[in-house]
């Protein structure tokens, strides 16, 4: 049929994220898929003043980097990015495109998939190939109650992947690859950014924290988070919170959980957190989970390794003292 491309004409694995760290993580899964399919791994590098990052993408596993480095891509506006993605995808017909599941990345992935009339599976936690070479994705559904395994039947196969799902590959400093520059005329913007308010950096990187002390509605006042902060500092970790503390009480702008930051720290301590499924879905992969709750029946206690049934206002200060003692003896 005219204008139709046969399935076999799709070739290569592509990765893109405007978040460079996440792009590197995608390269590790991308490399594995490309090797299995005996095809090339391409990283797209889109942005303004970004070409200096091309080499690191090669060192982390890309066979090829396609660079579109233009001032029009300075702000994260969907339309010019979509021009670049659509133009390149139509020229080269990749088999698989992996996007980082940032909010911007999800917008781009879904809109690109629509332009290419293909499928898009967002927020995948696992990816593999079936024996026909179709992409299989796993993602969390039903508010965290289940994981769905989904098979693609249309190409390109587009998936988005949250931060910290895959480990960054070990770089090979003398790895070589092809770096290509692409040119195109950008489509018009449909929206205009009037103002940008940047948030404090500390709130942003909770995915990276090895220890997370999470406060829930059991914490009565915002000032009481000082207690959690102290605990976090002693452990070398960071403080997080549940969604109602952001949305209802407006103490924070972000939260931990299915619809917020998904984390997998070595240690998670939930303080006055009930552990409703949407929250638990975001902490499920933590190595050790501790629940501090005055209600022994709270759902978090069901999914914790260690449970303390008690008032957090008694337990946390005691825990701070006990930790101070322990850290003193272990350092002396």
């Amino acid at each position: 049929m005219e204008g139709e491309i046969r399935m076999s004409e799709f070739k290569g694995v592509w990765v893109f994220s405007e978040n460079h760290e996440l792009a590197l993580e995608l390269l590790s899964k991308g490399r594995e898929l490309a090797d299995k399919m005996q095809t090339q791994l391409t990283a797209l590098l889109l942005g303004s003043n970004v070409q200096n990052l091309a080499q690191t993408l090669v060192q982390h596993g890309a066979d090829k980097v396609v660079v579109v480095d233009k001032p029009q891509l300075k702000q994260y506006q969907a339309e010019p990015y979509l021009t670049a993605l659509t133009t390149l995808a139509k020229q080269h017909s990749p088999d698989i495109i992996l996007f980082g599941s940032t909010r911007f990345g999800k917008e781009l992935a879904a809109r690109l998939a629509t332009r290419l009339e293909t499928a898009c599976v967002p927020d995948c936690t696992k990816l593999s190939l079936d024996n026909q070479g179709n992409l299989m994705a796993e993602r969390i559904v039903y508010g965290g109650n289940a994981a769905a395994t989904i098979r693609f039947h249309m190409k390109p196969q587009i998936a988005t992947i949250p931060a910290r799902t895959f480990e960054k590959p070990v770089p090979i400093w003398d790895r070589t690859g092809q770096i290509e520059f692409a040119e195109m005329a950008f489509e018009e913007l449909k929206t205009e950014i009037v103002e940008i308010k940047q948030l404090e950096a500390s709130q942003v990187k909770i995915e990276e924290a090895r220890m997370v002390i999470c406060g829930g509605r059991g914490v009565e006042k915002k000032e009481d988070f000082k207690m959690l902060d102290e605990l976090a500092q002693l452990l070398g970790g960071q403080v997080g919170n549940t969604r109602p503390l952001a949305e209802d009480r407006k103490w924070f702008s972000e939260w931990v959980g299915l619809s917020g930051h998904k984390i997998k720290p070595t240690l998670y301590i939930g303080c006055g957190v009930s552990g409703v499924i949407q929250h638990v879905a975001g902490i499920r992969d933590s190595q050790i989970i501790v629940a501090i709750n005055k209600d022994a029946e709270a759902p978090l206690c069901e999914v914790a390794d260690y449970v303390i049934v008690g008032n957090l206002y008694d337990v946390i200060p005691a825990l701070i003292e006990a930790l101070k003692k322990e850290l003193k003896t272990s350092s002396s």
Partner: protein
Amino acid sequence: MPKIIVCIKQAVDVTQIRADPSTRKLITADAPRKISDIDKNALEEAIRIKEKQGGEIIAVTIGDENAKTALREALAMGADKAYHLNDPAFQNTDTRVTSLILAEAVRKIGEFDLILCGETTIDSFTGITSQRVAERSGIPLIMYARKMNLESGVVVAEKVLEDRFETVKAKTPALITVVKGINEPRIPSLMAIMKASKKEIVVWNAEAMGIPKEKLVSALEIVEVLAPKMERKKIVIKGETPAEIAEKLVKALVQEGVVGR
């Protein structure tokens, strides 16, 4: 006066589903359903605009016979008219198909100022249907709005992103997705519920919409849906005093190798 289309989905109430403990398979067949939480926020936002500026609110849903309940609730909250897109071929599809049906409905409904959607639905949790509708309709898209304002053909919204808030402007018609924090959806009064039973629900199937069946084939196959394994130790630490309990926990964490050296 603005005409606002709100896309609502009748979702499975995820707090009411259970898995079969032996097979880990979810039991969703007879699980209760409700309007997906954030879609109610989208509807509430439309109602607030109408309260100030007048106009018309149209609720649209793709769903089976049961989904009529969701539309009745939307009408009771304050929608003026509803479209029920109901066809066996509309069920169990993917976002590519869902967005095609919604975009086609929007086109058939005619002129409008805004389409409002939820950020994501509580059951499928994809959060990508609305982008696809905007793209198919060729209109501006502003996602994750936690505040919005519509005035003389221009919509301004504040987007919540991971590390920043962006105030973004677009000309109407435009599609906006809202986050849960944007407002508190109202609970309709008995009076409103009674009145709603008189409002019109238009039912369209694939034929009425002129969508050929071959366009409704899903590009994705759900292979299985299983409850996750969650095997944890569940050790309850007991003691006479908080200090004693705290020390026991610290000792356990040291033994686990997560605290100390």
